[in-house]
């Protein structure tokens, strides 16, 4: 197994909510990230998926040290990134980079391409002007841009080219991790494939790891080695991508897959229409935060918070349904597949990996 680059332990972020004149009165807390654990392996991609407000972007910001965790830690090669100062922090910033969703907003309109791409190198220091210039040219070629354009400004480029510039800027300082926050969703459909292929090629060429924050499951399946599904600040399922897409276990994951759009009219699958909307993170439901919308909720689901536990090789789920299954099937001790398979049968609703069937479109 590939070695861990980033390990996240009990990562928690609460934002104080202030109201009133001057926002002085404290009005409680918003828990954006509620104690999550995951690992990003060297040279691989972990996807964080979920709907707006689930905490995926905040998690990305915590890894970039743009926010400070309320509890828990982020370890890079075993070292807590909060402890880094001075040179070590500079070093961290060059090892962990980011590409954001909207290349119209993320690139400074006042800077030339060469300065945008060189920024992280200059900040890191230790390179001559000549070395910086050579590296900028090299990395622009690697992302498929012409070096004739290094003196141009971002507005002279199309959306796809701008996103390539953003990727070049992230790549310049030889990072080990790039946080990709919805890297293609602002781009035109015919351009998305170009940028996704590029990101994959760069990964296999340079061994950079990605944390992919995304909502589109098709993008995730194409890009990610592992996938973590978030709901109201918690990980509800965390697994190898192929395992998860073929056998989604958590009822929320299943609903998310069922809501994803088909690639062909004959693949319109059974729909699990969730009642209601994601509750406010200011006032999350007790127990499993998904229970008010869950079609299989048990009495204990509204009381007890389920913990993320391994139910099969490379697959963990936070759901009481699978605990019941494993206690009924003690064979779970021998690798955990027995219990998981039993419960998989019970909840097999035909996600994208399952059998396709005609949906309500007819009639």
């Amino acid at each position: 197994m590939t070695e861990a680059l980033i390990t996240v332990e009990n990562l928690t972020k609460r934002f104080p909510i202030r109201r009133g004149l001057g926002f002085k009165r404290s009005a409680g807390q918003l828990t954006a990230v509620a104690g999550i654990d995951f690992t990003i392996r060297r040279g691989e991609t972990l996807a964080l998926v979920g709907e707006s407000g689930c905490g995926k972007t905040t998690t990305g910001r915590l890894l970039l040290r743009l926010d400070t965790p309320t509890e828990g830690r982020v370890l890079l090669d075993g070292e807590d990134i909060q402890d880094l100062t001075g040179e070590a922090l500079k070093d961290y910033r060059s090892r962990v980079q980011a590409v954001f969703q909207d290349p119209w907003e993320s690139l400074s309109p006042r800077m030339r391409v060469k300065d945008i791409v060189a920024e992280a190198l200059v900040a890191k220091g230790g390179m001559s002007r000549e070395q910086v210039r050579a590296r900028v040219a090299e990395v622009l070629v690697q992302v498929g841009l012409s070096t004739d354009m290094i003196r141009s400004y971002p507005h002279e480029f199309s959306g796809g080219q701008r996103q390539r510039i953003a990727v070049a800027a992230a790549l310049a300082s030889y990072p080990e991790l790039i946080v990709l926050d919805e890297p293609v969703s602002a781009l035109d459909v015919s351009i998305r494939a170009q940028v996704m292929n590029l990101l994959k090629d760069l990964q296999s060429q340079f061994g950079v790891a990605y944390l992919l924050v995304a909502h589109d499951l098709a993008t995730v399946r194409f890009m990610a080695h592992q996938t973590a599904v978030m709901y109201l600040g918690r990980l509800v399922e965390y697994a190898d991508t192929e395992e998860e897409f073929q056998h989604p276990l958590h009822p929320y994951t299943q609903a998310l897959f069922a809501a994803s759009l088909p690639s062909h009219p004959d693949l319109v699958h059974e729909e699990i229409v969730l009642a209601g909307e994601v509750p406010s993170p200011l006032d999350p439901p007790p127990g499993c935060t998904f229970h008010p919308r869950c079609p299989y909720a048990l009495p204990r689901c509204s009381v007890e918070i389920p913990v993320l536990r391994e139910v099969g090789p490379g697959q963990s789920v936070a759901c009481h349904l699978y605990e019941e299954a494993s206690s009924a099937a003690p064979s779970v001790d021998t690798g955990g597949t027995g219990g998981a398979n039993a419960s998989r049968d019970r909840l097999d609703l035909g996600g994208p990996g399952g059998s396709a069937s005609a949906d309500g479109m007819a009639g």
Partner: protein
Amino acid sequence: MNDGVPSGPRDLDVVLDVRGLRTSFLSDRGEVKAVDGVSFQLRRGETLGIVGESGCGKTVTALSIMRLLPRQSARTVGGEIWLGGRDLLTLSPREMRRVRGRQISMILQDPQTSLNPVFTVGNQVVEALETAHEGGTPELRQRAVGLLHDVNIAAPERRMRNYPHQLSGGMKQRVVGAIAIAGGPEVVIADEPTTALDVTIQLQYLRLLRDIQRRTNLSIIFITHDFGIIARMCDRVAVMYAGRIVEQGEIRDIFNSPSHPYTEALIKSVPKVEQRADRLPFIEGQPPGLGNWPAGCAFAERCVHRGEKCREHEYPPTVSLRPGHAVDCWRYLP
């Protein structure tokens, strides 16, 4: 082939007939074409998808049909738009106001901007009802409550008194839907109505539109950039590129045998949720911006099947491949 199409008795009457629509933006640099000869028909109870990338003219087509183009900067310079026995392009602004809401209405992408923040939900739905229904305010308010109920808004009486900011995004878009159908239109144009919504809320909304369509035999034009929405929602699809419909047909014809090189390449370039892939086929270059269209076939410079004809000749004529499936491409001509 018809298994995805609503079954049962179905009226195949054409309700909207757009012929040779041409719309241009007027700027200091002169006329810039945005829609360059678009023709299609919409039948009763049918959902037609218009799919394309930014700048292809799909939204301008919709605004031209609604006659909601900004008056100073854009003008429809040619074509006909037949709805209910009249060419909308010949109507006076006053006559057109009576058409909007009653015969045709539109749902925009962002519910935040299509609702007025300073009026209650109730006021806005009642206002939409007033365009088409007689009756005093109490009666219309009663109807408005019923309409909110129809779009699956819980506790509609209470929601009538809410302002838009008190509703979630999904709920706001359902209110916009209620307003769109308040006047009992035959045609609703939905321009990327679910782009701002989360996936599970998107599914709720798509189902709602389909339910309303089944109840009222509404015809829907669904404008999107997403082939997944086309696959799930539409009966037929028109693919736009550089201001023209380059291919149109029943969705299964388009997905099974996409015939315009652009359609084919675009469908292939989208990653599939059902299947793992190592690499995605992609289209070289980028979509042309407005008014930046090359002569001849605008897709030629990105096309893998490009022949000598494509750039030298004029724009290719429309070829009918099978009933209802038409494509603009020199490949199918001798």
